[in-house]
């Protein structure tokens, strides 16, 4: 989880800087990181605000970028469906790429849904570092070394790849992973990376199901 925290913090600082550069006030910047709490959409929105796009266009793009969360939420249903509804409602707000990946691998490892583990991953691993780093970036990000120079931009894709491999326990998972990756790459190159993620995430498991368990 340390690597994820470092990556989240590094890019939180960059978001704080970006938002300041785009003309956000400090309250608006903090509001983005606490209320929206979705890094890719926040970066896209900050750029679009700076470029003078209309709000409906920004909101539409946000919806498209964040549609992948449907898959995460659905994939956590088998684990969290017995938790009280208000708790699941709160869990949903902090469901990010990183929180999903960390908690799902943790649940698989344990064989059951570990409630404190979810909150630790989502709040301790992502929400708190992202928001503190956003604030730090806004207030003094110029003084911090560029996370790209430090190689921290590789942490996110490397963590996603590593966590994906960590979830492979049988033939079905291998097929879901390989086909999901292949479909995602093809769709990302021909349409858009966000479409690729959705296509790979939906079709990979469907093809994986066609395989016998053993």
């Amino acid at each position, binding site marked *: 989880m*340390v*690597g994820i925290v470092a990556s989240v913090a590094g890019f939180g600082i960059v978001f704080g800087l970006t938002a300041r550069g785009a003309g956000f*006030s400090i*309250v*608006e910047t903090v509001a*983005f990181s606490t*209320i*929206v709490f*979705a890094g890719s*959409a926040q970066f896209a929105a900050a750029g679009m605000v700076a470029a003078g796009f209309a709000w409906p266009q920004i*909101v539409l793009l*946000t*919806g498209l970028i*964040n549609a992948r*969360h*449907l898959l995460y939420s*659905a994939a*956590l*249903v088998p684990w969290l*469906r017995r938790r009280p509804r208000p708790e*699941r*409602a709160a869990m*949903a*707000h902090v469901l990010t790429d990183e929180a999903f990946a960390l908690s*799902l691998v943790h649940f698989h490892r344990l064989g059951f849904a570990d409630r404190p583990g979810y909150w630790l991953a989502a709040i301790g691993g992502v929400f708190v570092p992202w928001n503190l780093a956003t604030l730090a970036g806004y207030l003094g990000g110029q003084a911090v070394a560029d996370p790209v120079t430090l*190689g*921290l931009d*590789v*942490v*996110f*894709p*490397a*963590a996603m*790849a*590593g*966590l*994906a*491999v*960590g*979830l*492979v326990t049988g033939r*079905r998972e291998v097929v*879901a*992973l390989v086909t*999901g*990756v292949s479909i*995602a*790459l093809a769709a*990302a*190159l*021909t349409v858009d*990376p966000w479409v*690729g*993620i959705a296509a*790979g*995430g939906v*079709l*990979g*498991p469907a093809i*994986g199901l066609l395989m016998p368990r053993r």
Partner: protein
Amino acid sequence: MSLELVGLALLMLAVTYPARAIPLLAPRFERLPPLALDYLRLVGPAVLGAIAVSDVLVGAGADSRPVLVVGWESVAVALCAALVAWRRNLALGLLVAVALIAVLRAVGIA
């Protein structure tokens, strides 16, 4: 101090939260057939792998169209995945991947 963009943040929440919450909260999802549960268990590796390749292998071309990008970053990510498969240790994989890229960038290769 401007607060105008807080309204935009709320609108962005309005399109983000449903995607995060609907499956977790909809009663239909609480009673899923075994086939659906099997399917959902396969979503994790597929979607995380899809995120990784989309992040590291796809960039924006001159006309903003997606293009295939194969660089040292892809090697570092593949190395991390291989180390996790071999040693079952994500921290080790991340450390090696970041160190490789940091060193290559420091010497001006990556």
